């Protein structure tokens, strides 16, 4: 028979006790750490610390329980119970026993069975537990007190504008303004320094004010608006308001005779987010052979936060010539990084769009900020991926049928200037050869641009950029080098009548001395300007090609100026809506008969500036007398979008209302009204006749 006893029943209470010991001794430390984490870094850190500490504690408890093994049991039994005759090991030993040992083991086993396993466990280490929990409670209490003090509002600041009040009249003695920005801004509440408040729109403003002696009631009076009653609390009179529109307010209390000066309530509007393209660097990318996916990176910036989710709109234009099909699909993408500056990285699988040579794919990102309610949605710039069409088949004799594949994307003159300036800045870090090469590259850009504008002048076709002749020796033309760089200045190169034209092949490859039709489209003045621009471009090109970008820069700038003037000269002014022409009387048309024509007078609608109210007030303020302040204030409120600083005008009105007799305040309001008055179109002044004397003089002149 097997006499060995399983040690577990005897070990279990001791193990439980040991684990309990560990937990009880160390758990205060975990709690204190978690509380510290919560206090210093927020509730998330606190919870993480608590969970981590709990796990560590469990592991520690398990370890200390595991330390109690059979050996410990034997030692403990032998040490505790003399009746076991130091033979407890025999009972729990698994080894083969000798007969004598067997006998002894049986004897001892009976005695062991009589021992209560719970008595074997260590006693509770009361002192250690008491010490640990005492220290822990003390630390937790300390943290709690610290936190409470931290979150308690600061004491009231002494009021800046305590007016000299008569005895017994309430006087503003203390002030505290707490600004709680809307939750979506992520801004922490703060206390304002003064009663003039400038805070994000939608903030909650909480005032706490103290008066001495205490009044019966107190309120915040919005000038020309609502009244916020203050309620008396433990540390003063308090009230709150949501800040949405700019306004002026003043503190009033029952029994206060003179009005306190008005203070400003100015909301800071939330700006819509802005989207910027990071990759690809230019607005137009060319699809590489075998490209499977396309990475587009946008960056969206906002003053508070950009929503993580944005909408990517992908438009495909598949097909060639007139047979182009458009398809639009959109997907939701997730941004990463700082909420104020989120980055949206999108890998577009190109296979799914079914692109064929010659098609375009346009990706555009629509982002929103986190404003609530009503997030502001902004559509970002589009970026184009182009699947280049295959080169024309190289068939001898069909050269003239070669087609220019890529519409010419020229660098703009402004881009040339930017490049040149960048090159000049980098001069020191570049080798002489590379410098010359880059300068030459910019010179090529400048040349292309010059030729582009030269087309309008009917410049010789020899100079027009020829598309690469499709010969076998010729490599792929370095076209992408000359694409418009950054997607912001596409409007520079005007559309030419021969823009990418297929039909004008003869002009492209031939040699014509005559000017094209385009040249007659411009009036002589514009032609002269254009010529000046071309001359300046030519000078710039020469200098760039010879590696002297500094010398080229003035000419580039001059050319840009001329081009701007040309654009101005050819600006067309159109009404915003289409004009409605009377129907043509076909029976009269081209007959030359003019009978019965009735000329209706061309009527003009008078141009009305609604500033009669401030103009009247402005004139009246020059003289002593009563002013219609309410009407003026209503006008300012109604027109506050046009006025640069409506609050300043309102403050001046309000100050004058408080002291209608004050000359200085009248002058101040009059001065403020000057910014409100619309400037009328210059009027005509009658000239005086100089009286009888002057008339006689003029008559005597003859």
């Amino acid at each position, binding site marked *: 028979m097997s006499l060995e006893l399983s040690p577990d029943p005897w070990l279990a209470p001791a193990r439980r006790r040991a684990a309990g010991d560990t937990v009880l001794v160390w758990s205060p430390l975990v709690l204190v750490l978690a509380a510290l984490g919560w206090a210093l870094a927020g509730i998330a850190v606190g919870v993480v610390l608590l969970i981590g500490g709990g796990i560590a504690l469990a592991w520690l408890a398990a370890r200390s329980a595991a330390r109690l093994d059979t050996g410990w049991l034997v030692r403990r039994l032998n040490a505790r119970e003399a009746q076991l005759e130091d033979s407890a090991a025999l009972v729990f030993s698994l080894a083969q026993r000798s007969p004598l040992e067997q006998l002894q083991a049986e004897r001892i086993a009976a005695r062991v069975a009589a021992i209560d396993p719970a008595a074997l466990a260590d006693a509770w280490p009361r002192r250690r537990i008491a010490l640990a929990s005492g220290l822990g409670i003390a630390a937790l209490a300390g943290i709690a007190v610290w936190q409470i003090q931290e979150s308690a509002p600061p004491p009231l600041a002494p009021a800046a504008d305590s007016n000299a009040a008569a005895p017994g009249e309430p006087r503003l003695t203390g002030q505290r303004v707490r600004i709680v920005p809307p939750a979506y801004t992520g801004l922490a509440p703060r206390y304002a320094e003064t009663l003039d408040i400038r805070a994000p729109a939608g903030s909650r403003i909480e005032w706490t004010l103290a008066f001495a002696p205490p009044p019966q009631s107190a309120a915040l009076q919005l000038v020309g608006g609502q009244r916020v009653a203050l309620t008396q609390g433990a540390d003063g009179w308090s009230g709150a308001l949501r800040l949405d529109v700019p306004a002026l307010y003043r503190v009033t209390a029952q029994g206060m005779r003179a009005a306190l000066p008005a203070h400003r309530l100015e909301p800071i509007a939330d700006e819509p987010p802005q989207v910027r393209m990071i990759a690809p660097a230019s607005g137009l990318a060319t699809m590489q052979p075998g490209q499977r996916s396309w990475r587009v990176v946008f960056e969206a910036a906002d003053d508070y936060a950009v929503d993580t989710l944005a909408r990517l709109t992908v438009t495909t234009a598949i097909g060639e010539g007139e047979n182009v099909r458009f398809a639009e699909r959109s997907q939701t993408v997730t941004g990463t990084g700082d909420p104020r500056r989120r980055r949206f990285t999108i890998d577009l699988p190109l296979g799914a769009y079914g692109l064929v040579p010659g098609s375009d794919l346009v990706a555009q990102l629509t982002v929103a900020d986190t404003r609530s309610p009503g997030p502001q949605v902004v559509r970002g710039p589009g970026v184009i991926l182009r699947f280049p069409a295959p080169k024309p088949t190289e068939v001898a004799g069909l050269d003239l049928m070669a087609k220019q594949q890529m519409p010419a994307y020229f660098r703009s003159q402004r881009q040339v200037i930017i490049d040149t300036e960048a090159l000049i800045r980098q001069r020191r870090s570049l080798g002489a050869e590379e410098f010359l090469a880059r300068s030459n590259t910019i010179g090529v850009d400048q040349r292309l641009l010059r030729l582009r504008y030269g087309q309008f002048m009917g410049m010789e076709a020899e100079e027009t950029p020829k598309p690469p002749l499709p010969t076998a020796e010729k490599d792929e033309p370095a076209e992408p080098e000359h694409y418009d760089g950054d997607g912001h200045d596409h409007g520079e190169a005007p559309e030419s009548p021969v823009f990418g034209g297929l039909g004008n092949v003869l002009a492209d490859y031939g040699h014509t001395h005559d000017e094209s039709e385009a040249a007659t489209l411009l009036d002589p*003045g514009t032609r002269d300007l254009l010529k000046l621009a071309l001359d300046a471009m030519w000078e710039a090109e020469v200098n760039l090609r010879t590696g002297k970008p500094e010398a080229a820069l003035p000419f580039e700038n001059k050319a840009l100026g001329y081009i*701007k*003037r040309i654009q*101005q*000269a050819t600006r067309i*002014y159109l009404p915003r809506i289409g004009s409605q022409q009377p129907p043509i009387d076909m029976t009269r048309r081209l007959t030359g008969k*003019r009978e019965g*024509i*009735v*000329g*209706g*007078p*061309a009527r*003009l609608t*008078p*141009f009305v*500036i609604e*500033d009669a109210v401030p*103009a009247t007030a*402005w*004139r009246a303020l*020059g*003289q*002593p007398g009563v002013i219609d302040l309410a009407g003026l204030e209503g006008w300012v409120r109604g*027109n506050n*979008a*046009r*006025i*640069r600083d409506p609050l300043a005008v309102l403050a001046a009105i309000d100050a004058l209302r408080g002291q209608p007799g004050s*000359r200085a305040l009248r002058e101040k309001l*009059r*001065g*403020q*009204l*000057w*910014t*409100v*008055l*619309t*400037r*009328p*179109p*210059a*009027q*005509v*002044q*009658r*000239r*005086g*006749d*100089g*009286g009888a*004397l*002057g*008339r006689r003089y*003029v*008559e005597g*002149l*003859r």
Partner: protein
Amino acid sequence: MIAPETLAALLIASGALTAAVRFALLRQGWRGWLLAGLSLASGLSLWLALFPPALPLGGETLLVATAETPAGTRAGPGERLVALPEAPSLAGAERVPDLATALRRHQQVQRLRIVGRGLTERDRDGTAGLPATFTPLPPPRGLIRLDPPADTPAGAVFTLAGEAAGMAGGTAELLDPAGQRVDSRAIGDTGQFTLGGTARAPGLATFTLRLRGRDKAIVSDTPVPLRTLEERPVRALLIGAPSPETKYLRRWAEDSGIELKSRLDAGGGVDLGGGGVRLDTGSLAESDIVIIEDRALMALGGGARATLARAVAGGLGMVVVMTGPATASARDAWRSLGFASEGGDEIAPVALAPLATDAEALAAQRGPPLPDAADDLNTLDDPAPELGRWALRTGPDVVPVVTDAEGALIAGWQQRGQGRVALWTLAGSFALVLGGQQDRYAQWWSAALSAVARPDAVFRPEVPALVQAGERAAICGIAPGARVIAPDKAEVALAIDPSAGPRGCAAFWPLAPGEHRIVQTGRDGELAFAFLVFAETAFTSLRAAETGRETARWAAQQSATAARSLPERRSAAWPYVLLWLLVSGALWFGERRLRAPPGT
């Protein structure tokens, strides 16, 4: 030639010396010496009796201390120091209320010497009748001259000029009544500058001229008054063809309150202007201005042009708008109306000055935008429109009223009788409106029409440009019964000075700063004209510089008129004759005693 004084002196001296030597040799001892001395004294007194010296006996110089007189100033020999009320306290100075009092008290003075900043207007008023010397102090640092803007029509541009001393490298800024900067100029070595701004609604406004030093610190703030007059609407006729030019002209006329009737002949008897415009004597007499395109003028025919010419001589204003090159016949037609010119068949570019110094100043000049105006429309960076003008050559009779940035004529007028004829040489001025410069378009047309409009009996008294409280102001151009209403509603009747001639001038002493109104009862009821009075300290440096300039001129005037009338004066001879008689008597007595024998 020996002067008689010298000859007499030699003769008398030799005689006296001989007598003295003789006395000294005649008797040794104190008596001899005494007689010798007496004979010398007798010779001297004889000479003095013959030629009495020009001693300052009653011919003093009056030393007049004015403001900022140096503290150590004292009367020199033959000078008497008086201090005017502005002068600081000086030791030994006699306080006088004004210069006339000082001259009355000291009638013996023969000369004036003025020290300090100079005489105020009160003392410069009369002539002293004495030669005066005055060395002006160096001008104070700050504004020393200010030409405030003239009366400005509503919405028009105004300019002001000034001069600052010791401010080279600083800036002059014009601030509008709200304190926004409207214009600013760097001050050069000459110290002169010109600033501009825009007027708004009719009324009186106070701008501020701020001078800043080289370190941008504010040196002075000087108020600048701007008067914008409320006008009776001008009645105008527009004769032309339907074109952008007439379209935008009508637009501006409508907006600026001109009562415009137009005749826009579209051919075939179709008038797009509303009809009812006839160029006869009656309708012309009821109009103030006729604006006519050159082609329409040529199409009128001789009779109608003669009617127009008569109407112009009667006071009508006329503006001929050039739409094409001037031909010889067109120039003849203009000449018959009263405008003489040559050329005008070539087009020349118009140079446009920038609208403002910077975008902020432009915004302040333009005022609040219209409700539907875009922010980025018509900015300062927008290129100026390309304009051309017909290069017309005119004589000295033509007064330019609108010129471009280089001074080339855009519009000019010539007087004919009571009226004026102007020629508008800018081809396609509407391009200014299209190019975003409607401010300039309106300004130019306003200037041209204001120059030629029919003269009118308007109530515009002449008031000094800068009026200060406590200083006399001469108000001219008023009729009897006019009065001034002060800001506190106190009324002061103006007494017209009959000696000031037919201009109708009266003096007025404003007491307090503020807006004053001159009120006069005219034929059509009560007429009012407002002017601003500034505080006494408003123009300190300006007044100081002006006082120095004016006093120097006054002193030069006094010296020029008084120098001839001053006689050569010697002191009276009788005291010296008496002295000589006494000395000679004593000498005679002594000599008798001397020559008498000692015993007798």
